[in-house]
């Protein structure tokens, strides 16, 4: 089974010192945050590869105790977020097998946010509505556009 990244051309990858990554996909307008485990799997997917090679690479770059099951779980996470594609479906790794291989390794984590969501949050952060505004006893009359010389 082959594994490869879905679209590297439109992705900007920001690596961080703790091994985690933030990937900005300008074409699909998404931002992804990967923890170090998912980041190691992402790094391993440069070019076409296989699950066993991904697991080997993750063991080398991230943690020697990473199991094949954990590598598989990580690739599944990346595939669900459409960051990698696989030539066939994986059999689902059993939770017990994944947890058994955990040791000191963090479970893979991939969190995404669309740029639309980010835009909405930015607007919220800009508007900064304070509910106390307008609740004064002496309530200000607000936000009607007038010129300074006009009767208000």
């Amino acid at each position, binding site marked *: 089974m082959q594994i490869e990244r879905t679209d590297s051309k439109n992705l900007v990858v920001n690596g961080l010192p703790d091994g985690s990554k933030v990937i900005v996909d300008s074409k699909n307008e998404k*931002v992804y945050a990967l923890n170090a485990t998912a980041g190691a799997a992402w790094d391993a997917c440069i070019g076409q590869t296989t699950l066993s090679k991904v697991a080997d690479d993750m063991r080398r770059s991230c943690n020697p105790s990473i199991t094949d099951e954990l590598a598989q779980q990580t690739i599944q996470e990346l595939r669900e977020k459409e960051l990698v594609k696989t030539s066939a479906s994986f059999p689902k790794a059993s939770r017990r097998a994944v947890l058994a291989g955990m040791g000191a390794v963090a479970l893979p984590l991939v969190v995404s946010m669309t740029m639309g969501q980010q835009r909405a949050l930015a607007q919220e952060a800009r508007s900064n509505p304070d509910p*106390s505004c307008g609740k004064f006893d002496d309530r200000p*009359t607000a936000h009607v556009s007038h010129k300074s010389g006009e009767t208000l």
Partner: protein
Amino acid sequence: MSSLDQAFHDARSFREVVHQAPTRSYQSGGHCFGVCLYGFKIHVEAPSLEVMELLARCVFPSIPRTDIAFSRADICLRVVQKAHEFHLYRGDGFVASTSRADKLLRILIDCLDRAFIEGVRTLSAVHAGAVLLGDLALLFPGASHSGKSSLVAELLRHGAICYSDEYALIDSEGLVHAYPRPLLLRNGGSEQTAVLPFELNARVASSPAEVGWILSLQYEAGGSWKIDEVPQSLALLSLLRNTPHTLADSPQIVRSFRRAVAGARCFEGQRGESSDAVCQIMRLALASR
């Protein structure tokens, strides 16, 4: 005494001077002053010295006053008295009116916040409380009404140095700069009071700093302190969720924020009351140095 303790001691013994406003009278008998913050020019006019003193307290009081002409300012805020009412204008546009000038201050601060965020070119803002502990900045990103101001105030009372209770300003190298507006503290009700850092025995940071810690905290009334260390990538996402800049229009913010989180330890979780949270934060800061 550790460098952290020394910094706290220095902050406690510091007394900051508020730059008083009255600088210039103009033809109609009013008064005006200017402030330049990171290249963003503000012109303020008031109808009397009394109102001018109120405004001086709210418009970046720790920044020296200068003479900025109405025509050269990025924003002009004017309070005009008409009969028994005070009217606030942004440029020529009416914003609000009330019979007491002090009731306009919260709206004036909001106007100034928005204009600054839209106008500043060299810095990226994050909606976050920010203080200096030792020589590193602590950020706690969060939306309005998430308790940032009360937590900043409590940290200042414990010797931290103030960057902001509202916006952490981050430069292209990832360093944090002060946004020196007054703290807006609730007095138990819905109304907010402008409090200056020196009134809490603290001062505003005068130089930028690297980020040492990022804490994304949810306030739970009566709750206890529960946090987990998270990857730096999640902290970067938290900064993106709390910035007023849109990623589509300002893609460079990712680079600035990446540099900001690169040296930080990052945590997410919940906190209870500010007094308890501050003890935990101080413990965390001391333990990680």
